């Protein structure tokens, strides 16, 4: 691997400006890394030709002094964002050959700021999962091996994104986060992963999973890169009715700002029974770092935390079952082979053959909680408890500026040793789900390696539209921990 791939976005920005290398040279260097690490299976579709063409255009704009925020930055796009003329699969058989006729707002924003697309990366099918093992296009391996030398999962659902960025195959990647799908894979692979406030990034053209929760965000190697990339992705969009009509601040300005006097909430409910000791200690260590930087630690209570999981697994599948009803084999996507007895038979065979097991299970769960007789007992009940969760956060934020928790109750699973029971797997999202329920911005900051040599990360949660506070805190942590992203499973 050349050193070009190790540079951060601000370093690239300066070097491109000074003419130390060109955007085309940088793109070629990343394309080489992407091709060399094909065995990790991060990319579903490589778009090297597009990358080189976009990089040429970047070089022209840099020369003309018109560089955008993401000028010449080679990135990977989660295969959930529709890209015009480029296959977009959601890692599902049902969209195996889907070629969108339009560009998602997030990718469109990134390209208009000069980003270069290396390709489309895998995720759990329809972003439903925490391992990326449910992708129709095969297992994605994290570049991190455990101590026995076995590959681990890259987390999920944005596992192709986390593999590509932590494996130096892209300088950054888009992710989407419904219940933790940016933060958990970032935590598993040693990356910075930020989920902004619900509404910050337009959902238009992003394949829908659970519309009241889905939010796009950046996955990068540094906090500053995260701020730069989020600024390029965010913005009001009339085409998404939940898009927030607010100015996007310069997130980069928050980097390196003093956190003196900030109040950091430590929620006792996150210290769950049986919490991994190493993670518990790491949480204390990072809290102390913030304290040493002048922040004040405040014990808080988020009493409804333990109900966030059940609420999420009612609301998200309910919304998914409605969103995924569009896959019927009529207008786009896969259709099963006939002959069919009738139209219904075609729907049935298409959906049963086109969706994987986990997606089918979520559709069934969602249909169950929405079906007559159960709607009030489950769906309405969950919406009510969701309000209580949001109110818990609201009260906490009257006392504190941000909240610090672990991002995940464990480090990455070794492939094949992940929980096999769906419920056990769902419990792995317990730290990331609550902030999602309330639409709050939250991010993972890599902080350390555990005794198995695998990354650990901490989560920062801040108030609605106050991403800058979490970026300031994250940059203080980043500087103090000096985490080295040096995965042991990459080809030299």
């Amino acid at each position, binding site marked *: 691997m050349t050193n070009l791939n190790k540079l951060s976005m601000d370093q690239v920005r300066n070097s491109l400006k000074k003419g130390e290398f060109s955007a085309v040279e940088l793109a070629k260097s990343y394309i080489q890394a992407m091709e060399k690490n094909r065995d990790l299976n991060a990319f579903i579709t490589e778009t090297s030709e597009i990358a080189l063409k976009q990089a040429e255009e970047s070089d022209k704009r840099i020369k003309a002094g018109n560089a955008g925020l993401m000028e010449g930055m080679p990135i990977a796009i989660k295969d959930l964002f529709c890209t015009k003329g480029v296959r977009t699969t959601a890692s599902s058989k049902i969209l195996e050959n889907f070629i969108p006729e339009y560009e998602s707002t997030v990718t469109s924003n990134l390209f208009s700021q000069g980003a270069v697309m290396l390709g489309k990366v895998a995720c759990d099918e329809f972003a439903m999962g925490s391992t990326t093992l449910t992708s129709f296009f095969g297992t994605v391996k994290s570049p991190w091996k455990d101590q026995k030398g076995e590959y681990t999962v890259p987390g999920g659902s944005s596992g192709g994104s986390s593999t590509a960025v932590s494996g130096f195959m892209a300088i950054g990647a888009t992710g989407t986060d419904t219940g933790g799908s940016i933060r958990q894979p970032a935590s598993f692979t040693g990356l910075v992963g930020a989920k902004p406030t619900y509404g910050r990034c337009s959902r238009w053209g992003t394949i829908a999973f659970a519309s009241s929760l889905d939010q796009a965000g950046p996955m990068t190697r540094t906090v500053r890169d995260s701020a730069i990339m989020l600024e390029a992705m965010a913005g009001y969009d009339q085409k998404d009715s939940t898009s927030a009509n607010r100015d996007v601040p310069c997130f980069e300005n928050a980097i390196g700002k003093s956190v003196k006097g900030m109040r950091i909430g430590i929620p006792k409910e996150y210290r769950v029974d049986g919490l991994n000791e190493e993670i518990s200690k790491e949480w204390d260590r990072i809290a102390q770092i913030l304290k040493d930087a002048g922040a004040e630690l405040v014990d808080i209570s988020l009493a409804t935390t333990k109900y966030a999981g059940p609420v999420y697994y009612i609301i998200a599948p309910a919304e998914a079952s409605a969103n995924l009803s569009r896959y019927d084999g009529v207008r786009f*996507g896969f259709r099963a082979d006939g002959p069919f007895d009738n139209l219904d038979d075609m729907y*049935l065979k298409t959906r049963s053959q086109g969706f994987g097991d986990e997606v089918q299970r979520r559709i069934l769960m969602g249909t169950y909680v929405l079906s007559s007789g159960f709607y009030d007992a489950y769906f309405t009940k969950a919406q009510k408890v969701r309000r209580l969760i949001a109110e818990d956060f609201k009260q906490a934020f009257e006392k504190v500026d941000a909240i610090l928790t672990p991002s995940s109750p464990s480090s990455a699973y070794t492939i094949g040793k992940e929980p096999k029971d769906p419920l056990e797997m769902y419990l792995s999202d317990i730290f990331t789900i609550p902030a999602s329920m*309330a639409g709050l911005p939250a991010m993972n900051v890599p902080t350390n390696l555990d005794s198995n040599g695998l990354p650990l990360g901490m989560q920062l949660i801040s108030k609605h539209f106050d991403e800058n506070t979490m970026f300031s805190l994250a940059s203080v942590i980043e500087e103090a921990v000096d985490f080295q992203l040096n995965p042991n499973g990459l080809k030299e």
Partner: protein
Amino acid sequence: MGVDTKTLDRICELSRIEIKEENKQDVISKLDNVIHWMDSLNEVDTSKVEPLVNVSSLFGSAPWREDKATGGNKVEQVLKNAPSQMEEHFLVPKVVE
């Protein structure tokens, strides 16, 4: 509340998803586990709580926009990804006897 074969058949029908007979018990036991977990919400008193329907309402409201047509006449693009089509229509199995 739990899931039995009859309930599974009903939600499968609503979902247009077919579960093979030999897999039904496995699907039921996995769903049942999750639904049992969901039942823990009954511990929470929500008698005076309004359901949170719109997340944007937590920080203002979703903005309004003018209701105007912004495109159309894109027959070719719309049909491009269709598994089966003919003369500007999607083709499906016969629906009228």
